[in-house]
């Protein structure tokens, strides 16, 4: 596979600083404001370096599954994702990130991006900061989730300062398994996403770049909760939003949308405005993100058991009724055992684990990845160097 190399001039006349390149890259600790947040900043190794590299994982398979057919969800085309990466590079470059490392992406994504980069005229290039050098990881593509996981492992080994992820809940789940404490910028290109956000990637790029170069500020990173799923004889797995137990036995097209088979649900966040299983929890008992608690819901297996019937937007275009038996809050660190029975366990909406009979499978709420809070980073960037340099 051909690699795209761009000459990177680290000196730049960035569109929003009046400083020279060397000032932009030297960090003067005296310039950073003191921490003002009540919460202590998360203890992670902050890679502050002029040579900061940012990883990019853009999943060509996100937003293309069976929910296109059964629920009227739209297809997120790969040319659109390529455009998002292009704009991301503009933002990263403007923040001064010299290098990016990207997972090779088939189905038109990498090719469309290369075309866009090649089509960037000299005039466009002179108007903004140079784009970072874009290197594609040299790795085989299997067109499975293993690709994203392998890419993130490689990026962490290469010492990336942050990783931008373009994908759905599923993609982010896989990334979270491998990224450790490397901060991630979570951008949505999937179906009814709860974890990643819909965000213009230019600004996401600027924010991520500022984080990568050490300008996150105390509120710029947020520790996200995860649900850890453990079973004997297997590696623990995790979910960022929900763990659902269904009586459907076979992991078929992965997307979970048959609500009549749903038995149990665990969530890290319960937002009544979301689309998907976590909104079921949200409509029962709303829980804000970052509140430190989760929710455990049990569905009624027969009509006599049902306490509440909830009308839920399960997927885009699909609203259905669910009979609930009971629910309780989930405290961090406390393992809860799944009810017995044949079926499968879905992690973040995709069926991943088959379970039978009396398998001992437990779920517990724990600490997960560090997420870049774009709004917080940009708020801190306002009026402070390197974004704004007061010349008076």
């Amino acid at each position, binding site marked *: 596979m051909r690699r795209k190399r761009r000459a990177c001039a680290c000196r730049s006349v960035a569109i929003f600083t009046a400083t020279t390149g060397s000032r932009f890259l030297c960090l003067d600790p005296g310039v950073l404001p003191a921490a003002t947040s009540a919460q202590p900043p998360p203890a992670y190794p902050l890679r502050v370096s002029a040579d900061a590299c940012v990883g990019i994982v853009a999943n*060509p*398979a996100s937003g*293309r*599954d*069976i929910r*296109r*057919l*059964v629920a009227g969800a739209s*297809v997120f*085309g*790969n*040319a659109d994702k390529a455009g998002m990466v292009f704009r991301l590079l503009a933002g990263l470059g403007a923040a001064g990130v010299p290098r990016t490392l990207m997972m090779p992406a088939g*189905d*038109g*994504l*990498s*090719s*469309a991006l*290369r*075309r866009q980069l090649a089509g960037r005229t000299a005039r466009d290039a002179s108007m903004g900061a140079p784009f970072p050098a874009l290197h594609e990881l040299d790795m085989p593509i299997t*067109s*499975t989730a293993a690709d994203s996981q392998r890419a993130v492992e490689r990026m962490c080994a290469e010492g990336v300062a942050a990783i931008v992820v373009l994908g759905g809940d599923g993609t982010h789940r896989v990334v979270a398994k491998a990224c450790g404490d490397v901060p991630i910028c979570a951008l949505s290109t999937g179906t009814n996403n709860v974890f990643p956000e819909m965000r213009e990637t230019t600004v996401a790029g600027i924010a991520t770049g500022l984080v990568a170069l050490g300008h996150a500020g105390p509120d710029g990173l947020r520790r996200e909760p995860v649900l850890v799923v453990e079973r004997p004889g297997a590696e623990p797995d995790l979910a960022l939003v929900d763990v659902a137990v269904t009586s*459907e*036995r*076979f*992991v*078929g*097209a*992965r997307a979970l*949308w*048959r*609500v*009549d*088979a749903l038995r149990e649900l665990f969530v890290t966040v319960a937002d009544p405005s979301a689309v998907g299983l976590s909104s079921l929890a949200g409509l029962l008992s709303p829980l804000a993100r970052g509140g430190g608690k989760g929710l455990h819901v049990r569905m009624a297996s027969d009509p006599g058991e049902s306490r509440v019937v909830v*009308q839920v937007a399960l997927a885009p*275009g*699909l*609203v*259905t*009724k669910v009979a609930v038996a009971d629910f309780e809050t989930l405290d961090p660190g406390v393992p809860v055992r799944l009810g017995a029975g*044949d079926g499968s366990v879905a992690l973040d909406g995709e069926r991943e684990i*088959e379970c*039978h*009979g009396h398998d001992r499978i437990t779920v517990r709420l724990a600490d997960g990845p560090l997420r870049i809070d774009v709004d917080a980073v940009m708020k801190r960037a306002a009026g402070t160097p390197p974004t704004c340099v007061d010349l008076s």
Partner: protein
Amino acid sequence: MSAVETPASSELTRDELLDAYRVMRTIREFEERVHLEFATGEIPGFVHLYAGEEAIAAGVCLLLRDDDYVASTHRGHGHAIAKGCDVKGMMAEIYGKKTGLCHGKGGSMHIADLSRGMLGANGIVGGGPPLACGVGLNARVRQSDQVAVSFTGDGGSNQGTFLESLNLAAAWHLPVVFVIENNGYAESTSPNFHQAGVDLIKRGEGCGLPGISVDGFDFFAVREVASEAIARARAGGGATLIECKASRYFGHFEGDQQTYRAPGEVEELRRTRDCLLAFAGRVTSAGAIDPGELEAIDEQTRALIDEAVAEAKAAPEPDPSDVGTDVYVSY
């Protein structure tokens, strides 16, 4: 807000699981055997083997009735077997014998059985989709709920006939399911070279059809997606485009040295992605099927293929007087 009805569960029964395994195993054994026999030089013409892609044929065709039609490609043995064509008749046809499904006149690339809804394997790349549109139009005019499935390769999806068929099926709201079997090689050319980074399912959207991509090594995934598309077509919901990603184990044709493949590529696929191994693993670990039952099917299938080859070799060739038969159709 109105509640949308969710379709009935597509959980497979034990019999359906065994049937699916039997079909995939039959295709695999058939192709592996033809691979060996072709090397002897006894088989006339070319053969293009389907081994590796069984989950696609089984996942789609087992959902179809005898009066639903399949338009296939030059790599058609898998579709023919999955659609219910007689295995012995197929083998005899490949050997060019009079007892073949097409009386020995079509060979591997034109295996057909209209009574089973198998319109035929097709030697013309991109030849199938327009035929499927014809079936779809027929069904609409006669107000029947029959469905047509058209198989095409990644290379074939570049053909004008394919793109025209997508458009026609969309414009005329035809009950057609277009399946792209993307095995990563158009003969010997990778999509990196024969397409400019195309998102295949967006070709459907470009013509106004929903498109969806699925792992072609996973029988259950293919079946679930195909089930939705077929139900949609039957209910008057029009056409769908499905991309199934898989890989073929053998060459484009028998005799192809496959120098365009990476060293160890096929061995790696057979070891890690094989659809039969994955299927067997899943149904036995779920406790639905006993491994012994699958082994029994393996043995029965091998015996069937042995008989088919022996009978095909022993069968008579068409005689010169047959040259004028099967040429015209009388109404």
